[in-house]
């Protein structure tokens, strides 16, 4: 399969991007690329933001790391980006797909694509991250819990794009667990759960991904199997799928214990 015809624009700065017309945004192209080839997506105009320098910047503040949307999984996996503590970010990034995908795939692209089985979607939700958007009238901050509306659907409005992801730093005593079940290393997960416990910041959170829609978020005293069982009943997963998700959650909780 070859893509249907489209025009490509490659702005190198935010200023240039603001001059661009309407088009489908592509960053690393690890999801849109195949979709174009399969002709599942047939945009007439594609705007690549991979060359925009501002989107590859990383900023570390006292309480957060702000990662440009076009920072690749590989850059995070290799430790070329400051961590939020506990080695959490590199550990997640190292498990994303295959090296070839990590070399090109970006954190912003992954979140915007909103694949329910994506690593960043599940883990960033657990870590309490938010996306920082850019639009002609400025921009806004959208917590991941409200950013993803459903499978492959995000809360961006027309003309609005994600420019960075803000990830709060973990306290030294924070605990963390992440388990995903894949048929093979690097394949899409069929069950995944992230648990983040940071009592100093009063955070007790578990997130179950790969449920077909937006991730299931359990907070505070709901970070336990019984609550997850109840929530999963609404997910549409079959019994076996629910058993797997609960096992993944149990394992993530054990890691974080």
């Amino acid at each position: 399969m070859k893509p249907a015809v489209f025009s490509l624009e490659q702005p190198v700065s935010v200023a240039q991007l603001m001059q661009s017309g309407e088009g489908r945004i592509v960053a690393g192209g690890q999801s849109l690329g195949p979709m174009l080839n399969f002709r599942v997506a047939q945009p007439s105009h594609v705007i690549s933001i991979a060359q925009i320098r501002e989107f590859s910047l990383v900023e570390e503040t006292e309480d957060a790391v702000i990662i440009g949307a076009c920072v690749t999984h590989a850059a995070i996996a290799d430790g070329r980006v400051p961590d939020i503590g506990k080695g959490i970010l590199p550990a997640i990034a190292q498990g994303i797909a295959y090296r070839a995908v990590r070399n090109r795939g970006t954190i912003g692209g992954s979140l915007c694509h909103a694949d329910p089985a994506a690593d960043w979607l599940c883990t960033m939700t657990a870590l309490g991250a938010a996306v920082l958007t850019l639009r002609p009238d400025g921009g806004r901050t959208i917590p991941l819990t409200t950013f993803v509306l459903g499978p492959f659907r995000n809360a961006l409005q027309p003309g609005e794009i994600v420019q960075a992801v803000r990830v709060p730093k973990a306290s030294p005593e924070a605990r963390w667990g992440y388990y995903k079940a894949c048929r093979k290393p690097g394949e899409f997960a069929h069950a995944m759960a992230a648990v983040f416990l940071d009592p100093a910041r009063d955070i007790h959170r578990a997130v179950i991904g790969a449920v077909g829609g937006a991730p299931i978020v359990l907070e505070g005293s709901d970070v336990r199997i019984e609550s997850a069982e109840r929530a999963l009943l609404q997910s549409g997963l079959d019994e076996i799928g629910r058993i797997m998700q609960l096992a993944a959650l149990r394992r993530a909780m054990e890691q974080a214990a």
Partner: protein
Amino acid sequence: MKGGAEGYGVGRSVRRKEDDRYMRGKGEYVGDIRLAGMRELAFVRSPLAHARIGNIRKPAGHEDRVFVAADLIGVKPIVANSGLPGFKSSAQPILAHDKVRHVGEAIAACVAATRAEAEDLAAAVEVDFEELPAVVDMLAARMPGAPLVHEHWGDNVFLESRVEADLSEIRRTAPVVVRRTLRTARQCMSPLEGRGVVALYDRRLDQIVLHTATQIPHIIRTGLAGCLGVSEENVRIVAPDVGGGFGYKGMLLSEEVCAAFLARHLGYPVRWLEDRREQLSGNANCREHHYDIMAYADRDGRLIALDAAATVDTGAYSIYPFSACLESAQVASILPGPYKFDAYRCITWSSATNKPGLVPYRGVARAGVCYAMETMIDAIAHAVNKEPYEVRLRNLVQPEDMPFDNITKKHFDSGDYPECLRRVVEAIDLPAIRRKQKDSADASVRIGVGFSIFCEQGAHGTSVYYGWGIPMVPGFEQAVARLTPDGGLELRVGIQSHGQGLETTLAQIANEVLGIPVERIRVVHGDTAVTPYSTGTWGSRCIVMAGGAVATACRELGQRIARIGAHLLQVPSGNVQVGKGLVSSGVASVRIEEVARTWYLRPQELPKDVDPGGLEVTSGYKTVRDTGTFSYAAHAVVVSVDTEMGDVRILDYALCEDGGVLINPMIVDGQVCGGVAQGIGTALYEEMPFDDHGQPLATTLADYMLPGATEVPMLRIDHMQTPSPYTAFGQKGIGEGGAIGPPAAIANAVNDALRPLGAEINQLPITPHRVLEALAASRLKVSA
């Protein structure tokens, strides 16, 4: 067998000559061919599994670049009949016209300068369909009232065959009876290179030249000429470097016929390269079997009788040349495996369904058959409370029985099967595993061990194939051996080497006979214009048949070299030997280069009685018996099964293979490793599911799971080398064995791990979902 690493002849692990170009990315595949004026083809393919075709509307202004069935004037469908009684014939249209019978069937061909533009055209073609109910399941296909894939048949059975026996007495008296129903998944063979075609018309020779990624160029020529209605001298097939076949490229394609027609019709070259979506969703599949088997045994686990019913999901069309009968006929004839027993009954059906045609895949029916038979052996073992390997030992054919004709008249040439099994039982350290299981009886991750043993018939010839009456019967295999004027050697063979390393192993055989250095030996293959006829590369036949032919041709060539050499040495021709690149008589010798120069460049110095055939020999070869070589292997595997997540991991894998005399042990190991990787795919990963409408559901490599580097363990390979009494060097075909053993061994290992929990899985692949399903079912059983 020769010791030491010296030399380049038979038995040496000579590095593969072809790897220099393969490893450097310098192979020349169909996709690398660029011809002036070449255009691209894209096909309009059926989105429905079963439908009547109404109007087809070509996009306005582009009518001359879109071709439908009516445009292919004089082109006939692909027909592959079997002579077996009751076989029903199918006609696979080159482009479908009255109806489509599976998703992905080609309906129109579109020609454009680039593939993308050809796909644009294909997307603009409008086809009216009247959807029909689809036949999706091979068992449902046999039920009365099922929709009909081929209406005029009256049912959906290509062929029913019966091996009959009266088992009534055994049924009454056998102390142990076990029964299992088993299912293997439909798989998609996935060589790294897909199929591909570049077709052109050579006006000077009035010849259609088809470059195609095929294993069987000479067979393709015959089939293609038949479909196009041209004579075979007007067709040349060239298979350049081919990036893996496994059976996927052992059939005549409708795309080949279509491209060949269009190249001649249009007057410019056309190219079609299969993409992964076409491969996965619409092209030929493999492996899908269903078994219902009863085994009867005594209390020691000795097998008394086997009563089997097997169904093969053959898909919509009988593929050329192997036909829709090969797989099921093989099931019936090889189910008994390497076991000795006296009563056997087997009914098989080849069901037609609305799926792509079924193509023999590495091991053909053997992977499924071995899985079925070895599951039964384990079932007997548990019924009589013995270790499964002990039951195998009790039933295996013994070395003193060799040669042995089994219950289906398969002629086992040689071997020591019990020894082969004993070696892997020892290698895997069974007692240690049993102890470990006891110590971890309550763990959520459980350990299991499984075994399989099987034989692989290779290089079987005329007497086996003529009885099936399919479009191809292998006979004598030929090879051309010719010296170049400067003393190099060209070998021309009609097979095609696409990963088997035959450019090296055939050179080793020639080196063994003539002593010419392997770097001066060129193996030419895969081109009908320059090679002798051959049925091609399939059935683990090449090292036996092409190897035997090369040896025969080189020996004849050696005699002619000897005659000239003796004359140059001025000794009687009976007094010389040819070897090590020399013709020698005592201490006197002359180099083969000198002999070559004499024939080609200094004919005035030739003896008067020289053979006028010169230094070019075409010779034919058959094995002493053409019933085939029987290589065999035992596999042993240790797995862990995560009872919470359903994951299966391979912890250890040991196998022992007897391929007779190994021409190149390193290449054999490579063949075994690659085969095992594919067998692991069959066991744990590969499955093409279809929905109730016949839609394939795993149409990308994100959905169709292939084993990769992380899924294939380090294999511990042991060899026995029992020579075949029937072949040139005692070698046996081993190309497929690696893929045959793993599903059985792995399934037995998983079930060994699950047995204490009361769960058993009788379906491949063993996915996490199926593991958890089986565990859930066993919990229900316990609580009920």
